[in-house]
């Protein structure tokens, strides 16, 4: 059964190769992304609750699916489907998008360090290609950032293998020098686009890179901070500080420039700050917020992009729903995840964090309402045409998801979030779990 996991990598690679000679590639991409999402959904029905699915090759756990990787994989597949539907006409970028999708799945599912290192480097390569395929030149800053991420991840992971004399992640769980931890986590922080490594993500205008790489980066931070390194209080404090500074700084710059990219940095900061609290409730809030961002971000990007050349009530409604979800207004999904984060703050009486988190959230609220005021409520009714259907479908799917997740919080938490929280709260017990499956 575990061989099914290889599909997440092989299917997009095959699709990328298959679409090269095709002229109309868009729908192949849509079908591939929809297939991967269906596969991820199907796995929820067969993967035992809280249990692992491990694909072994010669006793080496090449690919591992647990609650956390399953959640992130589902999110990336969803983001890919939305991107595929929206960019159905952008023929040139599609092979690279599929390449990115395969490598992102590889990083998420990797059960051993060589695989992880390989897919991480390929993911960075795919990022560069996808960005350039959109007609954008990679500047020195972005190139250096991608190179730095590659260097940090490769160096850090190689050092881990040398120190532990093993490649399977569950066998590498032990105490490492601070430098090794810092290298690996900084590499993933760069991918996540967290302050101070945020600039390259700001300059990259491709929504799939936003969604997939940012999510993979956060996944890496979660996996290594909790399950591999088992960071202590000081380590978690660093995560909280990075998260809160991203939230406040990203929010302020986003407010000044009405820039969605900085809004994403701020929202990523919320996830990281909550994760740094490290309690089950805080992790639930962090992971729920991560899932919400996967839905909200595309809605904001695509609706904002569409607003430049179309108008109409559908677009206005989607913009309103997207920005209200971003502002954490009920009944939309963003509200509930932040609610859990605030409960966790109160539970742990983390007042310094609260003192920064709440103003940060108010800045995001102010930004969201300001954008709505300017783009929806005060906008002059123009004669732009209504939204075209594949793009309109993406907006509707995302908006409905914002509402449905908000209204079905219980189910989402039970089936998607809780298994991921359990995977993280197990900490370095992750090793025993994988070893148990391998036996």
């Amino acid at each position, binding site marked *: 059964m575990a061989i099914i996991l290889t599909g997440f990598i092989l299917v997009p690679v095959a699709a990328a190769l298959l679409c090269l000679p095709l002229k109309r590639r868009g729908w192949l991409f849509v079908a591939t992304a929809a297939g991967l999402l269906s596969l991820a959904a199907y796995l929820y029905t067969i993967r035992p609750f809280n249990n692992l699915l491990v694909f072994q090759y010669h006793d080496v756990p090449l690919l591992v699916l647990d609650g956390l990787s399953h959640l992130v994989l589902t999110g990336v597949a969803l983001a890919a489907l939305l991107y595929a539907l929206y960019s159905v006409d952008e023929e040139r970028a599609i092979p690279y998008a599929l390449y990115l999708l395969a490598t992102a799945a590889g990083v998420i599912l990797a059960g051993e360090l060589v695989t992880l290192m390989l897919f991480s480097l390929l993911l960075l390569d795919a990022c560069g290609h996808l960005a350039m395929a959109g007609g954008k030149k990679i500047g020195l800053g972005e190139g250096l950032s991608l190179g730095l991420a590659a260097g940090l991840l490769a160096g850090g992971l190689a050092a881990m293998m040398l120190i532990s004399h093993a490649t399977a992640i569950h066998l590498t769980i032990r105490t490492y020098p601070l430098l090794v931890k810092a290298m690996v986590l900084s590499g993933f922080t760069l991918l996540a686009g967290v302050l101070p490594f945020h600039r390259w993500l700001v300059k990259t205008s491709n929504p799939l890179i936003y969604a997939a790489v940012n999510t993979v980066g956060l996944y890496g931070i979660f996996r290594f901070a909790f399950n591999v390194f088992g960071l202590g209080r000081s380590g978690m404090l660093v995560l909280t500080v990075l998260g809160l500074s991203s939230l406040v700084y990203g929010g302020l710059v986003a407010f000044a420039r009405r820039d969605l990219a900085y809004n994403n940095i701020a929202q990523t900061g919320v996830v990281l700050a909550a994760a740094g609290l490290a309690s089950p409730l805080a992790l639930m809030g962090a992971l729920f917020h991560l899932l919400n961002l996967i839905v909200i971000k595309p809605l904001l990007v695509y609706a904002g992009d569409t607003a430049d050349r179309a108008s109409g009530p559908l677009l206005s409604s989607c913009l309103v729903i997207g920005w209200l979800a971003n502002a954490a*207004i009920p009944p939309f999904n963003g509200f509930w995840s932040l609610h859990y984060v605030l409960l*966790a703050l*109160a*539970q742990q009486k983390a007042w310094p964090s609260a003192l920064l988190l709440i103003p940060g959230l*108010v800045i995001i*609220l102010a930004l969201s309402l300001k954008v709505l*005021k300017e783009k929806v*409520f005060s906008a002059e009714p123009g004669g732009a045409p209504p939204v075209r259907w594949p793009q309109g479908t993406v907006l509707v799917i995302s908006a409905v998801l914002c509402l449905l997740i908000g209204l079905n919080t219980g189910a989402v938490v039970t089936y998607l979030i809780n298994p991921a929280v359990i995977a993280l709260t197990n900490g370095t017990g992750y090793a025993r779990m994988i070893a148990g499956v391998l036996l």
Partner: protein
Amino acid sequence: MPLLAYIIIVPLIAAGLGLIFRRAAGALALAAAFFALVAGCLLMGGRQAWPAFSLLAYSLNSGAYLIAALITLLTVIYSLKYLTQLKRLGEYYAYLLLALAATAGALFTNEFLFLFLFWGLMGLALYLLIGTGGERAPAAAQKTLIILGGSDLLMALGAGLVWSLTGSMEFGGTALPVNTPLTLAAFLLLLTGAFAKAGVMPLHSWIPAAAEGAPTPVMALLPAALDKLVGVYLIARISLDIFMIQPGSLASLILLALGSFTIMAGVLGALLQHDLKKLLSFHAVSQVGYMVVGIGTGLPVGLAGALFHLFNNAIYKSALFFCAGSIEHRTGTTELKKLGGLAGKMPLTFAAALIAALAISGVPPLNGFVSKWLIYQGLIEVGQFDRFWLVWLTAAMLGSAFTLASFVKLLHAAFLGQWSENTAKAREVSWPMWFPPLFLAGLCVVFGLFAYQLPLRYFILPVFIRLVVPGVWDPGLATIMLFGGLLLGLLLYLLGNVRQTVTRPAFYGGEELPEETIKVTGDDFYDTVKRLAPLGLIFRVAERKVFDLYEQLKLALDSLADLASRIEGAIWRSF
């Protein structure tokens, strides 16, 4: 499903249908609001529960819901005529029903989690409803949701603290004493959200802003009625069910001080307004102060007064906003200096406005007097525990006097005096617009004359196990004495003055002045207050929005955001 479920579901379904069948939106809203009113009446029979959303109905929240449903129904009737020209009519009615459903949920829920859902939905409905208004609406809507949303975040943190202290997300049964820094923090954080919704200073500034932008029926329904009902109801639940407020305690002192400040600042702000709707919006702020003061006493009589005042305020404040809307509808303006002489042209609107104005000013035998009287008694009783009691009592009584003064100005400027260019051709509005305020004015009289037999008996007193109201208040006797006094005054006037009245043209510098130049508008009645030494300075500072917390934070945010943006640019340019 229990009735409580239908109370929430039916308006939501009607709202959804209204968005699809926009031409039938008004009729759907009317039917849903009527259903809500009937359901509210049925709920008065006893306690009901719907465990799905942890909803529980008892006398107090059922009474509040009944008033909310009544005012929603009247607002829909009023809007059918008033808002015929509104472009987004389908959305307007849908949001109105969303507000009603959310209000029901917020009033009946017994758990924080669901409270936040319904509470947030109310804020959303308010934001969207204000957004349906005119040119200034988007800015007003933005300000409203930023204040409400921001304070809700603090409230959520407070709820988290209560949960961490008690292990329960349910209201009731905890009665935490506010005697440690942690419980005080939880109490204040929870209050912040309720204060913002109710419009307690310094979180009030969204109400005057909304008055400038929102359609008038929206003001009559939400800031005047539903938001106050839910906001003050939550303050009462926080103070009664979640925490234990002892008279003379720090928590009590905080509430009394904030309440008194809100009364005085609100009413002084109202005195100086030149716009009818803005004047009323400042009174909407000021009246909340009475409720907060009543709750702050921590004594049953004060609490009963506060809760009764909550009901009364919704009734007369909505009536006054309806009257303002009718005036605007007929004259095209709400600027007081452009009004005058409408009493004869709009007699029914005038009657409603007069009764509501007297009620809000606490003139016996109307409902506002009874609730204020109970609050005063609470403040006198609290004197045993609180040495500042006289300060709070003075603020409350002075506030009442200033309220009357402010409404004398309003009534004179709008209804009495001479006609203006705008009012010369005005005429009475049609029945959907005069009926709602007149009905509510009638309710002011009924709730005043039969205060103990009706509202206090059915809505308020069942909440208190033991409540002894000191002193004697006989509304019948008071009414006879009041009207006797008025008749005597009229008689003396007729006997002494009427035949000696002479009319002469006015002169200035030897020239006869045209009649229109000597018109007394009433608009600048109290402008001299601005010249009083200490008050003048405060008013000048207030005009620069120094006391508007939102504006100050906005300034700070703009500066910080600009700084962050410059830093970001500078760093990456050098890189």
